[in-house]
């Protein structure tokens, strides 16, 4: 379900943040940042180094606790104390280094930390894992997302970079209930593999999960994002429509060469 940009009614807000402030000693990483994520959209978050985008994402995913400001999920204020809290709230994050155990199989990695146990005595007393069920589920979920890996029992380290990324994205999509956050998913991937991952991200959105995407790769951002959140100097500089704004203008806002009020009105989203 793509964001409906042709009518005037925007889709409901899934996540919202107002006035986020985060200081690290003398450095102010977030200086009153705002944020909105609409249902069914892919929102790209871009910004130069030091613009505060990683601090923003860390606050949204529970990795850091902001000093000031509030975050709302589905209209309710939330206080994440750790990434586990965020996960329990239904927000899954795909980290830049993928967070997979290379020597273990795809199925094992999918269920790492959320293993399924056998029913009855075997599961509760002997605490045996239901490997068959986990394998079947992995196959099902990956097929849903059309990830073309043949065997779920092969070790993750035997996969190519792009395939590994798909496993990480697939895992997040399989367990997320509200939001999927992805940190630089196409970095370090070649053209073909990068496109494979972009396709997968689209399918995740089509499944009904909004995606927050952090990326330095402008062409990929423009290809896939429904809206682009530009972070600058610890604040939100603008949210723009990639179908209307040019790439060079976007970069200009990002670096401060152009001010937001210098942009034509229909570039904003």
């Amino acid at each position: 379900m793509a964001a409906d940009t042709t009518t005037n009614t925007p889709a409901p807000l899934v996540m919202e943040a107002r006035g986020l402030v985060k200081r690290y000693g003398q450095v102010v990483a977030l200086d009153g940042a705002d944020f909105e994520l609409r249902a069914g959209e892919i929102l790209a978050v871009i910004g130069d180094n030091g613009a505060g985008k990683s601090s923003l994402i860390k606050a949204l995913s529970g990795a850091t606790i902001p000093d000031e400001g509030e975050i709302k999920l589905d209209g309710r204020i939330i206080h994440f104390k750790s990434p586990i809290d965020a996960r329990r709230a239904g927000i899954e994050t795909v980290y830049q280094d993928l967070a997979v155990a290379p020597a273990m199989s795809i199925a094992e990695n999918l269920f790492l930390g959320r293993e399924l146990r056998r029913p009855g005595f075997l599961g509760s007393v002997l605490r045996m894992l239901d490997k068959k069920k986990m394998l079947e589920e992995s196959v099902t979920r990956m097929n849903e997302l059309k990830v073309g890996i043949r065997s779920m029992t092969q070790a993750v380290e035997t996969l190519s970079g792009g395939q590994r990324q798909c496993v990480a994205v697939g895992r997040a999509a399989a367990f997320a209930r509200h939001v999927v956050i992805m940190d630089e998913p196409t970095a370090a991937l070649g053209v073909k593999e990068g496109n494979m991952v972009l396709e997968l991200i689209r399918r995740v959105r089509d499944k009904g999960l909004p995606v927050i995407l952090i990326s330095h790769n402008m062409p990929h951002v423009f290809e896939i994002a429904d809206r682009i959140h530009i972070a600058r100097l610890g604040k939100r500089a603008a949210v723009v429509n990639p179908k209307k704004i040019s790439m060079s203008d976007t970069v200009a806002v990002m670096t401060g060469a152009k001010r937001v009020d210098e942009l034509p009105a229909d570039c904003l989203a």
Partner: protein
Amino acid sequence: MKGRLPPLATLGPFIALLLACGFFATQNERFLTGGNLSLVLQQVMVVGVIAIGQTLIILTAGIDLSCGMVMALGGIVMTKFATELGVPPLLAVLCGIGVTTLFGLVNGLLVTRIKLPPFIVTLGTLNIAFAITQLYSNSQTVTDVPDAMTALGNTFALGGTTNVAYGVVLMLALYGLAWFALRETASGRHVYAVGNSPEATRLTGIPTQRVLLSVYVLAGVFYGIASLLSVARTGVGDPNAGQTENLDAITAVVLGGTSLFGGRGVILGSLVGALIVGVFRNGLTLMGVSSIYQVLVTGVLVILAVATDQLSRKGAR
């Protein structure tokens, strides 16, 4: 992982063991008898049980250099409690295991809370355990150990000349238990995950530090059981026990195909590794060859084992 042949690193040690047995069988017709083979099992049962604990630790990419000394301390504590303080044997055994578990806890806390490298930590506790053992025992062997404590050293007949020690049965049962836990339970898989990628494991919400701590504590329990087996086998509490078992246990784990970098390995491999060393020692003595050659062969096998592990992993990529 069904339908797939185990990787070379897992099969290799077993093949090496079979080849060694085959070779020694040709050199002396007594080698392949039930009596001789059950003897070898008895000779490796102490190192074998220590190696279970060591395998758990090495799977998390750690190492425990204090295992043998802690085992010796356990043996001294349980025998002295029973003979000098008149503690009933079962309670004395539990005290001995309690002390070794305590050392495991200390190792684990230093690694997880103070974040010191396991190599350094266990290098320190190895010396501390050794000193405490010597001081408490006054460097004297403890004799007149009650029969209940040495019961595991007794054997039962399995037909013919084959006499199996109860301790060996215990060792095999412990290996079975460890194998089951590591393969079929979430906690067991978490041990592998922590060793393979501690960051990834942390990010998926698994309490990495708790897993690490529990591994060191559990290893301490195994060292305590090993000290009981050592007392059962020799019939005494020996303060100088365990000095070669220290490195022997690590050798058994490496020979068994477990990677020192963590996250990879099969626990039964450590049993195979311990058996390889025991078979060579037994076989070479039967051939009348000096013990120095046994040491040489062990060194060569260790290098082969690590090299095979490295090469088979390169192939997987």
